[in-house]
């Protein structure tokens, strides 16, 4: 039976060496009602906006639904692991109810290569009781991880939304709320200690009064980051993970909303990574590693 995969030739060869056999390219998709988040429960377009907490919840649910579908498809073909999972989210082209805006729907697409351990001779029916493990690592990474006593424990992903209110002059301390609940605005003001090291190279210093840092924007971005990473850790803990590698931050400064009557800004961070756990028994540490550029293989 022929297989399908998105592996490169080298990856295919490497996978064979490592005892992995590609089964088929698996994919899952879903479209969800997921309008852009708006701060403070303000409804700009009735039925077309969500509060920050709602948005995070729905986004998390939507992504998990699609990843579950991917896992289901992999299980159906008898896979042990799905390698190189990539997740894409985009605004669907379909318009909302009536003449509504198009951006209230989001489309999630996940693709990966389902693989079986070679000793698992016949893929056949889903006789295996194991859940296929998803990972965004690609084959070379997987092989090295296994060789060094770790095993991918699963894909962990999280969406975090942070809301901050920007002081109009940039001088007030920021008030940051997360998901509309917790708050912390303890960011220190930007230290002015940094002196650019480019004096004497022809740069004319402008009027210092016209430039200044706005710490509230950093505060809200950082909050979204740390909440997302904390969610990743929370998701990885039950998997017995030692850590999370290959974290992809989907969007850095994502959606934001600023209107004339509201100074509130919203940052959405989508994060995804692979939880790795020490495999028992840990194989002996092998001496020097072979270096392979694997980093942006698919980018």
């Amino acid at each position, binding site marked *: 039976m022929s297989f399908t995969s998105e592996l490169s030739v*080298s990856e295919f060869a490497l996978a064979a060496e490592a005892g992995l056999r590609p089964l088929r390219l698996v994919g899952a998709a879903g479209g969800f009602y997921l309008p852009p988040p708006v701060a403070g429960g303000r409804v700009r377009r009735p039925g077309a906006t969500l509060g920050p907490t709602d948005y995070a919840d729905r986004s998390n649910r939507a992504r998990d639904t699609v990843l579950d579908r991917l896992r289901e498809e992999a299980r159906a073909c008898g896979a042990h692991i799905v390698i190189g999972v990539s997740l894409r989210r985009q605004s669907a082209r379909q318009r909302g109810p009536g003449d509504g805006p198009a951006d209230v729907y989001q489309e999630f697409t996940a693709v990966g290569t389902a693989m079986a351990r070679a000793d698992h001779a016949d893929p056949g029916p889903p006789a295996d009781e194991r859940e296929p493990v998803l990972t965004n*690592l690609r084959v*070379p*990474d*997987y092989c*090295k*991880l296994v060789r*060094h006593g*770790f095993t991918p424990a699963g894909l962990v992903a999280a969406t975090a939304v942070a809301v901050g209110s920007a002081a109009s002059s940039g001088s007030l301390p920021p008030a940051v709320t997360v998901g509309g609940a917790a708050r912390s605005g303890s960011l*220190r003001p*930007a*230290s002015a*200690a*940094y002196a*650019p*090291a*480019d004096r004497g*190279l*022809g*740069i*004319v210093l*402008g*009027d210092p009064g*016209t*430039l*200044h*840092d*706005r710490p509230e*924007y*950093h505060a809200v*971005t*950082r909050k979204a*980051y740390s909440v997302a*990473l904390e969610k*990743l*850790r929370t998701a*990885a*803990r039950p998997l017995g993970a*030692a*850590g*999370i*590698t*290959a*974290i*992809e*931050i989907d969007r850095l*400064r994502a959606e*934001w909303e600023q209107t004339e009557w509201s100074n509130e*800004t919203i940052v959405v961070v989508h994060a995804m*990574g*692979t939880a*790795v756990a020490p495999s028992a028994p840990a194989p002996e540490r092998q001496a020097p*590693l*072979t*270096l*392979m*550029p*694997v*980093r942006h*293989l698919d980018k």
Partner: protein
Amino acid sequence: MTGGMFTSGLSASEFLLVRDAGFEPAGLVMGSSVCHIALPPTVTSVAQLTGPSFGTIFSNVPKDGGEVAELSRAMSLARGTATTRLEEDARGLGADGVIDIRVESEWDSWYAGALEFTMTGTAVRRVGAAPGSAAGDRLFTCDLSGQDFWKLLQSGHRPAGLVIGYCAYAAEPDSALSNRELAGPTRAIYTARRLAVARMRNEAGHLGATGIVGVRLDGLGGLSRPAGSRTVEFRAAGTAIAPVMDTQTMQPSATALGL
């Protein structure tokens, strides 16, 4: 850090190599800064500032070409603030340094007249060092991947720091009715690139580095996008390196295989 679990943007093999080099990932860290640029009332974006009518509405944009000092300075300020925050974040994790730093900048990011500068990286700490006991004085920063970091250490060098040079330069007005080179823009590109590289080297000099590896020279497109804009931007970024004192640790160079 809770539960001793690390987060990292490194791929698996990089994570393993970093471990091999005697470091362990401490966590993903970030620092950002949004720099406010006071725009004249009639201007609605930084990009417009450097657009066709530049030089008439904003005194800091040179009419006859030259560095747009205000913007170079904004970048420098935002970068410095973001670096400070990145390092504070890393210190909070008891890290010795930050590797694999990625740099992004965007004009008019949050509102017209805002420059956002963001750095993310993986904080690493020496294996065995108790959290908090890290060499408190100076963190190292670099944009090397885990693999390059490992190779650098193997070769008897250490990263002295991430160095960045930036220049926004307005070309002198030039137009042609026949096919010929436009001297103004050409000169602007050359000058902007030269200044960006010179500033980066200057920073490396301040760090006592012997050289810079992995230099990337990016002509950023943010300011030249509006039709008729004559402003070019260059950013040079790389990792300044210095030899490790005890060169006894040097080992035969590793084989690198292209996949």
